[in-house]
């Protein structure tokens, strides 16, 4: 028993240090930092580089990493990203920190080339190499473990003293309690927020440095650190530091003790506990969320001074009649012409992208229209994919019928999920769906009949009406099929938006309370949105699996889903074209090959970012400048793709991180300008016009007055 308690205590201590930082930054800025684990990773890699590559001894390296570099990193990120997020929408807040989560590890690997993406290395611990050992109550403790426990205790004591008994602590508590009153009292709330981000990053860094000698530096370990911290923060209701600290210790203890038993025998049935340990944080998180439901909503005061600094004008009116069809038809023509100007390999890749585009429409419905951040959509897609694969391969249903069945099966599960979590607001909905999704992953998808040791379940391409869709002869046909499915699904989404349900959802996004007082049923509309999005997710998941030939767990990991959502939001979460572009982009950049062309493609794709979608279908494109801009971007994009795709250049390890980094920077950019570059440009042009009109109007008023 002893060693398990020790291991639990050590795990708990590390995540307790980490969650302290998470809760501190959340309390002071209302930004829930999904990049917290990534920051810990960055500092841990720095520590490793100093000790291993530069030959520093452990204590100076730890002090420089945690006490010098970490606060600077925190300050830097606060200045470029977090500062702007407090007043952003929940979706933008979420996506921007996810972007950093992806970008920071990539940056660490570019700066410190000693580590590569998949590697797992041990660092030297603060307890000496090899660490000395001693016995406590018959349990052998090494000094690395002891350092962790002592470190966590010291942090807890130091932090309490800082918060309770120092002027800085008093002012921080005041600024957290009410930034508005703090400003009236002469406190600069921004300075307090900056300091809390520095402290938060220090705590993340300390957790990283303590973790790396015990569990090694790998992205997986640091994601797990984030996950436990998320769960502990939820247990502490996001803002209670003692509760979160205790929650982290409790999760660590349960996880530590769970290693003692590999299976549970209830006499008549034996459970494998393989999936238990990783599920612990999620089970606790879900229980806590359901128990806290309605007790506390994300609420914060809005500081008027810090509102949007850029003045914005309303977007141009949407087109009506035949002109409205021009944009969609142009897109359809470009899509249908793809087989003419791409080779077979790229048609295959773009097919997967279009299939993923169908899947991504699920985000257009639930996040774009519904304004809800659901992280379970990827699991619904997984359900669709596995259902379709099982039915088509094992039960020998026709593939097209199996695909539809996959979509249908996802619906009741989506509705169940909606019933459980819809009352949770904003961030809590995201965390609740995350927990649900992970539990599904460990309890259902992890089973051997689905996982099949990682290789998943095979599924063939469909064949009906005598058309050949197979890889050998019907590659183009399959591509056309996907394009048609996408268009039908997009039409459904656009019509949903224009329906009463869509109107209710739009009203709800502006103000849920106001919408409710008009007598419309918000719950009903949310359920319709969730149900539709579940069907689209299931169908899209099935199509995505077909385009790969297999339904595998790797394709539908929860973290993959989070990155998907981030990409869709970066491209424009209200636009069906945004979903399609995001799908193609994701497939184009994600295959791990060493071809330079990917980098060019992603740069081009970023240049074309999301806003092209918004331009098409709005009157703005019919102004000379708008049209020139749109056509120019499109022309450059297509030319670049055609010219550069065949170019193959071997990439160094460093360069392979660049696309990931770019994606992350895209998300950072999102924080600065939530509606994208082109919007910004158009906005400036229209703003200048408006100002001119305003001056004229003011002049007229003045004249009338005299």
């Amino acid at each position: 028993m002893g060693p398990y308690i020790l291991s639990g205590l050590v795990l708990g201590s590390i995540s307790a240090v980490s969650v302290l930082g998470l809760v501190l930054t959340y309390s002071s800025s209302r930004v829930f930092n999904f990049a917290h684990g990534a920051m810990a990773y960055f500092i841990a890699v720095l520590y490793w580089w100093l000790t291993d590559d530069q030959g520093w001894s452990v204590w100076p390296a730890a002090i420089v990493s945690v006490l010098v570099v970490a606060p600077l990193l925190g300050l830097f990120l606060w200045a470029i990203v977090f500062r702007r997020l407090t007043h952003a929408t929940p979706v933008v807040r979420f996506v921007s920190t996810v972007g950093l989560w992806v970008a920071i590890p990539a940056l660490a690997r570019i700066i410190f080339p000693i580590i590569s993406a998949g590697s797992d290395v041990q660092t030297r611990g603060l307890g000496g190499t090899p660490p000395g050992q001693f016995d406590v109550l018959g349990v052998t403790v090494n000094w690395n473990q002891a350092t962790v426990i002592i470190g966590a205790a010291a942090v807890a004591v130091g932090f309490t003293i800082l918060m309770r008994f120092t002027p800085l602590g008093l002012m921080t508590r005041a600024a957290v309690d009410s930034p508005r009153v703090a400003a009236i009292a002469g406190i600069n709330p921004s300075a307090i927020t900056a300091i809390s981000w520095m402290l938060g990053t220090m705590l993340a860094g300390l957790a990283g440095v303590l973790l790396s000698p015990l569990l090694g530096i790998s992205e997986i370990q640091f994601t797990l650190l984030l996950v436990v911290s998320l769960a502990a923060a939820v247990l502490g209701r996001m803002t209670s530091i003692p509760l979160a600290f205790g929650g982290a210790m409790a999760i660590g203890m349960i996880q530590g003790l769970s290693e003692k038993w590999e299976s549970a025998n209830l006499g008549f049935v034996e459970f494998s506990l393989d999936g238990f340990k990783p599920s612990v944080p999620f089970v606790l998180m879900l229980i806590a969320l359901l128990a806290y439901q309605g007790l506390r909503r994300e609420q914060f005061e809005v500081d008027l001074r810090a509102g949007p600094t850029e003045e914005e004008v309303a977007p141009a009116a949407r087109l009506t009649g035949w002109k409205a069809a021009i944009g969609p038809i142009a897109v359809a023509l470009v899509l249908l012409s793809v087989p003419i100007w791409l080779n077979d390999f790229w048609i295959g890749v773009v097919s997967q992208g279009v299939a993923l585009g169908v899947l991504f429409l699920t985000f257009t419905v639930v996040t774009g229209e519904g304004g809800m951040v659901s992280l379970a959509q990827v699991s619904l897609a997984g359900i669709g994919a596995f259902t379709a694969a099982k039915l088509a391969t094992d039960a020998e249903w026709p593939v097209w019928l199996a695909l539809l069945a996959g979509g249908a099966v996802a619906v009741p599960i989506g509705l169940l999920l909606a019933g459980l979590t819809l009352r949770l607001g904003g961030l809590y909905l995201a965390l609740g769906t995350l927990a649900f999704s992970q539990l599904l992953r460990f309890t259902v998808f992890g089973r051997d009949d689905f996982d099949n040791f990682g290789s998943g379940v095979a599924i063939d391409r469909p064949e009906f009406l005598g058309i050949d869709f197979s890889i050998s002869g019907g590659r183009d046909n399959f591509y056309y099929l996907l394009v048609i499915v996408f268009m039908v699904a997009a039409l459904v989404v656009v019509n949903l938006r224009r329906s009463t349900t869509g109107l209710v959802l739009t009203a709800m996004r502006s103000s849920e309370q106001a919408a409710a007082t008009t007598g419309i049923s918000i719950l009903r509309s949310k359920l319709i949105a969730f149900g539709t999005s579940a069907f689209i997710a299931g169908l899209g998941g099935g199509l995505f699996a077909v385009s790969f030939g297999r339904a595998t767990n790797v394709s539908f990991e929860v973290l993959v889903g989070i990155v998907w959502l981030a990409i869709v939001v970066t491209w424009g979460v209200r636009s069906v074209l945004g979903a399609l572009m995001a799908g193609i982009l994701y497939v184009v950049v994600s295959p791990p090959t060493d071809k330079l062309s990917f980098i060019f493609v992603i740069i081009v794709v970023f240049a074309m970012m999301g806003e092209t979608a918004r331009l098409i279908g709005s009157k703005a494109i019919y102004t000379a400048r708008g049209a020139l801009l749109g056509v120019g971007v499109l022309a450059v994009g297509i030319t670049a793709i055609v010219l550069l795709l065949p170019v193959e250049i071997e990439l160094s390890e460093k360069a392979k991180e660049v696309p990931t980094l770019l994606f992350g920077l895209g998300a950072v950019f999102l924080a600065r300008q939530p509606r994208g570059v082109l919007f910004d440009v158009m906005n400036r042009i229209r703003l200048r016009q408006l100002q001119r009109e305003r001056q004229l109007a003011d002049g007229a008023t003045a004249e009338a007055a005299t």
Partner: protein
Amino acid sequence: MNSAAEPVLVVGGLEVRYGDARAVFGVDLEAPAGHVVAVLGPNGAGKSSLAAAITGRVPPAAGKVVLAGHDVTGKSASSISRMGVAYVPEERAIFPHLTVQDNLRVLLRFAVPRDDRAAAVERALEMFPILAERRRQQAGTLSGGEQQMLALARVLAAPPTLLVADEMSLGLAPRLVDLVFESLEKARDEGVTILLIEQYVERALAFANEAVILRRGRVVWRGPAVDAHAELVAGYLGSEG
């Protein structure tokens, strides 16, 4: 009172915009040292926007705010506060989750010199015995009146150069309204210049030296408070036509 001295507050051509909507149009205002200036007007006249622009919570779109000779236009709320401006809004300027004592420590921190901080907190607590009794209680658990006492205690313990009182008596029982005005009188006697935004027109005029009436974001009347007799004010404050 020496009205020839430099005015504590000079507002010139102040304009406040929220996006396309304009709340305040070119307002001029002057508050001589030690005077009480009442700002009156119907709902939506721009009184609170004016106060927000003066205290730095909303950046003015145009115009100037000069505080004791220093141009503070566009400065942040915290730096204006540190220049000796106390702002007491209708919606209780307190920290609900801090104790009464911690509230005073924060509120007074930048209002008094370093070595007077502890003493100022004690002074504030002495002024309202009920607060001293509840010094370790969270301020959010106090009644509305007690919360307003907390805000007043801050003002009285460290008299500011300028007090912007924005509808302080709103929603308080008559006895507490009396207390608010008594405290304001004390502050004035200490030499505090007061910009008084009030809904109790009669009481405000009885207390103020000058009055300014706003309507739809513009000054429509200004003059000595004694001249602002009932009919005149009623004419301006009556329903929007």
